[in-house]
């Protein structure tokens, strides 16, 4: 519990958790739906944070690993009637093993060659998942709803489940940064040559980061499949991978809080699209039905471009600056 140090932090943590949990009691279903999606995406973004933020292995194929997790649980729990609680770790494991396979090139290449490998992974995995007939051939599989004590989870209950998983994942991520493994990741990110000279096994460390990052993606896939009760290949496209990567960039590279903040920001932008598209549709009625889909792309791109150009260190850095300002006030140093 060393990641929560002071009494004020404990109070904030407990108060915040109680607040988030009670949201399930009075929030409208529409916003609860949004909150659950934010939770799912935050888990996948935390995986990206471990891979990209801590270990410096850029990935543009996270959506495919989410799909691996979703398909695992849909196949085992949906088609073969296993309990979803058994498939929870299995979904993570299968996605993690997929990550290992596509992480092997990281032994020889880095930088944008690795990015290209992960883009290839995205397309190869998604194509492969759509081929066999027992995986639904492009229509996907249906996954069962999760039931506890015989009754299916309501939306509010699913939000509590998501919240528990997100908190566990954040706890794990926060903690791994304090362990030998986490420090090895940071060493590899900052200077891989020096890290190797100091006796860190580069190959193993990189593969481990891929495994953990993709494990998180698999868990997110498990949540998503059981929430939508389907594993549809159309959900996990290249754009979703960019979503995850931009969450890490918007939040700030190398910070756990940043990854969650990035997920919330990107999803807020996504949530704001319908409101904006109504305004645009009133102003330009000739554009017709294309507006919502097009505006979703445009607003997402504009927000990420804004962050890359004007705030490349991300939201977390800005938060730290604000905290620093109040700590030092009235002095500037």
């Amino acid at each position, binding site marked *: 519990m060393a990641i929560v140090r002071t009494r004020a932090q404990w109070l904030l943590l407990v108060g915040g958790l109680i607040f988030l949990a009670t949201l399930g009691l009075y929030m409208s279903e529409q916003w609860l739906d949004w909150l659950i999606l934010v939770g799912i995406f935050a888990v996948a973004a935390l995986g990206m944070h471990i891979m990209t933020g801590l270990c410096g292995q850029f990935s543009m194929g996270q959506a495919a690993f989410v799909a691996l997790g979703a398909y695992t649980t849909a196949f085992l729990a949906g088609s073969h009637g296993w309990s979803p609680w058994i498939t929870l770790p299995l979904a993570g494991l299968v996605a993690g093993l997929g990550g290992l396979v596509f992480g092997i*090139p990281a032994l020889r290449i880095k930088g944008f060659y690795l990015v290209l490998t992960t883009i*290839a992974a995205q*397309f190869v995995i998604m194509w492969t998942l759509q081929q066999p007939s027992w995986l639904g051939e492009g229509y996907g599989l249906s996954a069962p709803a999760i039931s506890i004590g015989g009754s299916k989870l309501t939306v509010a209950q699913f939000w509590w489940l998501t919240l528990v998983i997100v908190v566990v994942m954040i706890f794990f991520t926060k903690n791994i940064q304090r362990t030998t493994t986490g420090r090895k990741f940071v060493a590899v990110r900052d200077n891989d040559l020096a890290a190797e000279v100091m006796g860190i096994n580069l190959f193993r460390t990189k593969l481990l980061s891929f495994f953990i990052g993709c494990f998180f993606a698999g868990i997110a896939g498990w949540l998503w499949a059981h929430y939508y009760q389907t594993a549809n290949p159309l959900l996990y496209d290249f754009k979703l991978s960019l979503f995850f990567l931009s969450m890490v960039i918007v939040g700030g590279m190398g910070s756990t809080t940043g990854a969650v903040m990035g997920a919330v920001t990107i999803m807020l932008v996504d949530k704001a699209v319908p409101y904006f598209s109504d305004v645009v549709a009133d102003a330009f009625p000739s554009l017709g039905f294309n507006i919502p889909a*097009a505006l979703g792309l*445009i607003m997402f*791109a504009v927000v*990420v471009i804004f962050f*890359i*150009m004007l705030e490349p260190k991300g939201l977390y850095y800005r938060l730290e600056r604000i905290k620093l300002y109040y700590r030092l006030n009235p002095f500037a140093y």
Partner: protein
Amino acid sequence: MDVVLVQYLLLGGVYALIALGFILVFKSSGVLNLAHGRMVAIASYILYQMLEVWGLPPWLGILLVILSGAVLGYLIERLAVRPLLGQPFLSVMMMTLMLGMLLEGVRYLIWGPDSFTLSFAPKAGQGWLGNLLPAWVSPSNALSFAVAMLVFVLLTLLFRYTKVGLSMRVVAADPEVAQSLGIRVKRVFSISWAMSGAFAALCGVLMGMVLIVTPNTGDMVLGLGLPVLLLGGLNSIPGAVVGGLIIGLAQGLGSYYQPWGLDVKEITPWIVMLIILLIRPWGLFGEKRIERI
């Protein structure tokens, strides 16, 4: 079988042209322009708008679309990529990806999910080209192959014999030395991006001739361009041509044999790319500049 292979070999010429657009930018400024596919797609749609909606004659439409492609490339370099000079590669890469999304959003706003073919493409058995070629060779494929090869020759000559080409080569080798030699590095960047944009537009015209232009074209072009690029080597112009032909041939073989009854046409380029990344990341003709670990 040889019919299928010839068709795909001819398509490989177009693939090579796609990769040339990437290489031009990469050679001079070291940026991998992942928005290139979307640029190609939007150029196709602009051409469609000019020819089918406004009713311009094809030659004027093609001229205008190539010009607008060059302007688009210049604007992207000036407004989005130059402010990021010296930033880590991921920022620049993400920026080009987001520009691609922006272009896709604009395209979707105007044209939506429509797909179309360009009607001026020569048909088999019609016109002088259709009569000249045997019936099993599609004249639009042959024409696009010829255009791609012509562009390749012109580009080689440009790099070899002109002052602009020379300055591009110097900037590619070392931008700081180039600057101290009195070459206007920024202008070289602008020129190469504008040329790359013009190439994208030309690709858009050819794609509209040989294939159906769909909202998916942008992703498809990216999925063909990157493997060709890596196969040939990131900064080699002949490599792009050889890579394009090899990828075309591989696709043809894949679609002819259909291993395990699967249509592997769309996935073959990616698999070739994965293999090349594993065994020879710098490609067939590329400079072995990769940082080894």
